[in-house]
């Protein structure tokens, strides 16, 4: 049979028709046509339903795909922030990186991130890497008021604000003068529903954010709060460290007090002696002008000695990180450090070997800070060898091609392998509990590095040796 369709054959059969025969009577023919038509309609409907359902699946997939894209974008932004936090690049850099990464996903817009100042009605700018300097300056501080620009409004109303060039906006003129035709601002709220930050997008043309982009902006809240709280914790930790550093200096001062007291009491004794001499001379009516003048001179010297020790003590205890840089002779730096430290060695018979004289090299430095570093090394050596049978500390100054090394070696047997790696870490100490806060070397290392130098332990020496390496200061001719 030429008509192969099974559906057709069925219909023919139902009406008892044979395709090879002549067409039936009109009534049967109409019945046949009606049946065929019904079949076509069904097929049409089926096809329509199939297409519809494909469309819906396709829409759903597009929707899901879109959601996945959004998630990926969010994850990528979160990752950038987390990586920055891990690498400890600092809060400003982290936010700047985030703003740049956001800009990649909202083409045509520039991103500015603001932080809400606690107890105030203002936002301060934290990052605006894509903006011109003039724009950044104009956005340094934004009021969180209804009449403010969209960023401030977003913070005031605690809801996203959109500006698209409408002249009724209170800041329309300012925005136009800065060259912006669109602005989207999103507030970030914490768990107590307070505004902690505002993200804003500015465009020079009239642009509209897609639904997805808008969702992306709204989802930044969590990661931003994490970055903020990380920055807060770091700041608190730093203050605590400074507090501990200050207390650690107090501890060291206490340890050195004995030697220092001696250094002050001797000149006082001498002064007293001269005073008594003068009294006796007057009582005995034995006044020799020359002798008395000499005596007064010696008294002056003794007073200067005391004044110097007091000054050195004071210098040791203060924060010298803001001092100006000065070219200073290394020998003088060493002498100042020894002034506070050397007397301790006499009490327990530690032999001090000083460098030979005649070293004319200077370093450009904050003298008080370098003296603090040397005192730290000398005190560490004192603690290390005071109870040993072999007790000495040797100091060498070795200049070579533009740099100079100050080497402090003591009779200790070197630092043991497992402690070497953490020598310069904060809060690590080899001293018994109660002594040593473990901050000395980590702070000393920071100071030396801030002077373009290096502070390191020399593992190749048979005894314990620490080296301060600094660039030599050369006056330009």
């Amino acid at each position, binding site marked *: 049979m030429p008509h192969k369709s099974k559906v057709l054959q069925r219909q023919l059969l139902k009406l008892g028709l044979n395709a090879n025969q002549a067409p039936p009577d009109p009534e049967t023919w109409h019945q046949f046509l009606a049946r065929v038509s019904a079949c076509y309609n069904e097929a049409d409907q089926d096809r329509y339903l199939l297409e519809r359902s494909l469309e819906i699946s396709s829409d759903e997939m597009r929707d899901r795909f879109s959601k996945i894209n959004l998630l990926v974008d969010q994850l990528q932004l979160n990752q950038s922030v987390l990586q920055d936090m891990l690498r400890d690049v600092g809060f400003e850099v982290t936010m700047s990186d985030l703003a740049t990464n956001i800009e990649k996903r909202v083409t045509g817009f520039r991103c500015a991130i603001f932080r809400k100042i606690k107890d105030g009605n203002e936002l301060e700018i934290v990052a605006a890497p894509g903006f011109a300097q003039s724009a950044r300056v104009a956005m340094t501080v934004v009021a969180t008021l209804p009449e403010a620009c969209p960023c401030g409004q977003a913070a005031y109303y605690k809801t996203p604000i959109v500006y698209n060039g409408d002249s009724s906006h209170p800041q329309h003129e300012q925005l136009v003068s800065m060259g912006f035709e669109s602005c989207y601002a999103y507030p970030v709220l914490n768990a107590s529903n307070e505004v902690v930050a505002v993200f804003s997008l500015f465009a020079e043309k009239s642009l509209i954010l897609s639904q997805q982009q808008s969702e992306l902006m709204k989802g930044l809240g969590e990661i931003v709060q994490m970055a903020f709280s990380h920055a807060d914790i770091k700041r608190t930790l730093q203050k605590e460290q400074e507090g501990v550093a200050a207390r650690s200096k107090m501890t060291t001062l206490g340890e050195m007090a004995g*030697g220092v007291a*001696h250094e002050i009491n001797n000149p006082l004794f*001498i002064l007293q002696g001269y005073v008594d001499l003068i009294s006796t001379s007057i009582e005995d009516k034995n006044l020799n002008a020359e002798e008395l003048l000499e005596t007064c001179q010696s008294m002056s010297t003794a007073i200067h000695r005391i004044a110097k020790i007091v000054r050195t003590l004071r210098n040791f205890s203060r924060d010298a990180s803001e001092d100006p840089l000065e070219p200073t002779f290394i020998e003088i730096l060493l002498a100042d450090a020894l002034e506070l430290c050397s*007397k301790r060695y006499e*009490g327990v018979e530690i032999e001090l070997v000083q460098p030979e004289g005649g070293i004319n090299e200077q370093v450009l430095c904050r003298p008080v800070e370098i003296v603090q570093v040397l005192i730290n090394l000398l005190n560490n050596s004192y603690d290390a060898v005071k109870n040993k049978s072999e007790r000495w500390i040797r100091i060498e100054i070795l200049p070579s091609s533009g740099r100079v090394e100050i080497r402090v070696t003591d009779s200790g047997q070197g630092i043991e392998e497992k402690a070497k790696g953490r020598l310069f870490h904060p809060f690590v100490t080899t001293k018994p509990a109660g002594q040593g806060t473990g901050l000395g070397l980590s702070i000393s290392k920071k100071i030396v590095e801030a002077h373009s130098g290096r502070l390191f332990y020399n593992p190749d020496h048979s005894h314990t040796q620490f080296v301060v390496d600094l660039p030599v200061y050369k006056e330009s001719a």
Partner: protein
Amino acid sequence: MSPRILIVDDEAEIRRIMQMHLRRKGFEVDIASGVSEASAMLQFDRVYDLVVCDFRMPDGNGVEVFKKIKPPTGFILISGFADMDETKLREIGIKEIVTKPADMAYLLEKIKANLPI
């Protein structure tokens, strides 16, 4: 004969002042700058009536000098460092400890009190 005193201190000015004062008061005064010099001088025939000795010196401390003297020589320990362990020092036998700064009148009193009779 005037009493003989040995002053031991690492600071030249202190030795000089003490020598000047004590000589004016009629003592014979010798000076030593450290443990080794003092030990050498204590080994001579001359016997000192009193040794006034600093506690901390570069080549040792005053206790080492104390161990070198024989009775009836008196001994006064002088120190500029206020927190030495006085109990331990007295246990060793040092009876007189004077802290710097002290005026000459006070020192003279202690010297007279520690001279052998």
